[in-house]
């Protein structure tokens, strides 16, 4: 998210750094950790199947003897990156469209786009994602695509509310009277002053989207095996819940920890008076 901040306001830059770190650290730990691990992601060892958590296998091993800790570490960057992409794209698209309909002088454009927004916002996300994945087949592309198609409308509504307030504000009117082009007014005056609410929502959305990705993978619609992904790992482990509960509990716990972490960051980010 740091790239979205134009670096012009001092306080938000600090908090955005904090938020960026909170996301970057688990990603780096996951990437580096899974490389350093003595076990490969897909190294099987049937003799060691269903080992309990121990020093050599902190999260135990699964039904074909793969080291669960290594796979969880590798899954963290995948889950977070997918969530980040599936939040960033609709955030950018939605914020710009919202800014446009917020300040456009044309009532026709405004009411048309708003009608589209209403219709898109009415789509139930999970169901729609299921439908898209059913059509394009399991995989991340369909999953991310479905999230983008449904979520940009929410961002557009939030930022259009903020931008509407700017329509009559004097610096925007002055820019118009100076003869600036609409794109320039949008980029310089409207978007920088109307994206903050949408950004706060994006931080909260990150958790929702991360959970959605995990749940769709749990349903078998997200990543394709053997790519490590937390939801898919839970799905694989659920068959052995009685025999080897660590196969579901530890990836599940990882999701919980990540969600709490992101929520903490999003609360701080949404609080304008807080400096992380």
């Amino acid at each position, binding site marked *: 998210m740091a790239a979205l901040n134009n670096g*012009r306001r001092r306080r938000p830059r600090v908090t955005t750094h904090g938020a960026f770190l909170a996301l970057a650290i688990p990603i780096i730990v996951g990437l580096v950790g899974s490389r350093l691990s003595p076990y490969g992601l897909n190294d099987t060892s049937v003799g060691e199947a269903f080992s309990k958590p121990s020093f050599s296998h902190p999260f135990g091993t699964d039904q074909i003897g793969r080291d669960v800790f290594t796979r969880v570490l590798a899954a963290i960057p995948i889950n977070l990156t997918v969530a980040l992409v599936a939040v960033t794209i609709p955030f950018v698209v939605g914020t710009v469209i919202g800014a446009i309909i917020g300040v456009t002088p044309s009532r026709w454009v405004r009411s048309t786009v708003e009608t589209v927004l209403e219709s898109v916002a009415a789509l139930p996300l999970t169901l729609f994602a299921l439908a898209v994945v059913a059509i394009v087949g399991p995989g991340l592309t369909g999953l991310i695509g479905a999230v983008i198609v449904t979520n940009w409308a929410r961002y557009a509504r939030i930022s259009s509310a903020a931008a509407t307030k700017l329509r009559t504000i004097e610096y925007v009117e002055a820019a118009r*009277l100076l*003869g*600036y082009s609409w794109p320039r007014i949008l980029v310089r005056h409207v978007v920088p002053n109307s994206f903050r609410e949408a950004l706060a929502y994006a931080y909260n959305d990150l958790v929702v989207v991360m959970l959605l990705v995990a749940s769709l993978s749990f349903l078998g619609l997200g990543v394709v095996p053997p790519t490590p992904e937390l939801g898919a790992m839970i799905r694989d482990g659920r068959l052995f819940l009685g025999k080897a509960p660590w196969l579901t509990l530890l990836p599940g716990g990882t999701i919980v920890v990540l969600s709490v972490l992101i929520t903490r960051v999003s609360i701080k980010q949404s609080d304008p008076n807080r400096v992380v």
Partner: protein
Amino acid sequence: MSDVVDPVVVVRNLTVSVPHDSGSIAVLDGAELTVNSGSRLGLVGESGSGKSMLCRAILGTLHRHDARVSGGTIHIQGRDASFFNDSDWHRLRGTVLGYVSQASLAGLNPTLTVRRHLVHAARAVMALDTRSAERCALEAIEMVELPRANRILDEYPSQLSGGMRQRVVIASALLQRPKLLVADEPTTALDVTVQKSIMDLLVRLTTSLGMSLVLVTHDLALVEEYTNEVVVLYAGATVEAGRTGDVLNDPRHPYTQALQSSRLRLGDKKLTSGMWLPGAPPQPGEWPQGCRFTPRCPHAQDVCSSGGQPRLEAVLSVRRTACIRSEEVFGT
């Protein structure tokens, strides 16, 4: 400069209407205004009397409220504004017409530095390279007497105080040395000491740049101290106009008289009748027949409520009033 009396702006019997339901209602009807070169004119009236609309009409920015001029004339430097298109207005703004907004916070984009504001504004209207635009910005900042001009150029509006922000807004209005500065309640959001320094600055600038000033306000004390002419608006019409001292000390319209006597003065022990004006100003669209002040006027007679709003008539050579009974009520 002040002995040159060719007017910068002349507004005659102006009607401005805004769309309302299927038709339209007039928010100004019978507004008169003459701004002489080098003069400082106070434009006073209650909220809703049309002060801001009159300013917008002069500046050609009525479109924000979908309002339009539906009668009367505006002449800017002798040219009839009804023939102006967008690019004519564009050329006039900045070079002839300058505007200082009411809320200094809303005038500046919180995400841009002072330097960017001024450089953008300078380059938008003049063909300048970056360096001369920067020099222009620095000159403007120095002109409004901000200390440490170089530091301030790199600060954001949130780092400036209200008075400093208002000075920046004035600086950007002055980039091209306009002939007329319209200041719509420039000191409303500021406390009185800052108000005084801003007003003193505006007076110094009008003198040194040979600029005229239209000061919109409902503060008669400001008008009395800082202007030499005054125009009183009531319900969309000019009811009295003249030199500030004359109008305030010896009003020739019952509304001006009521405004003047409703001011509290040091030493007033208690409110006496005549210190307030009963009733409220009529809303646009609900203006009464005849003189619009009739329902609240202590001197009203039957003759006042027939016909339309009286036009401004000359009394006492340099004064003009819209009261038909002026001579009976106030003598000659």
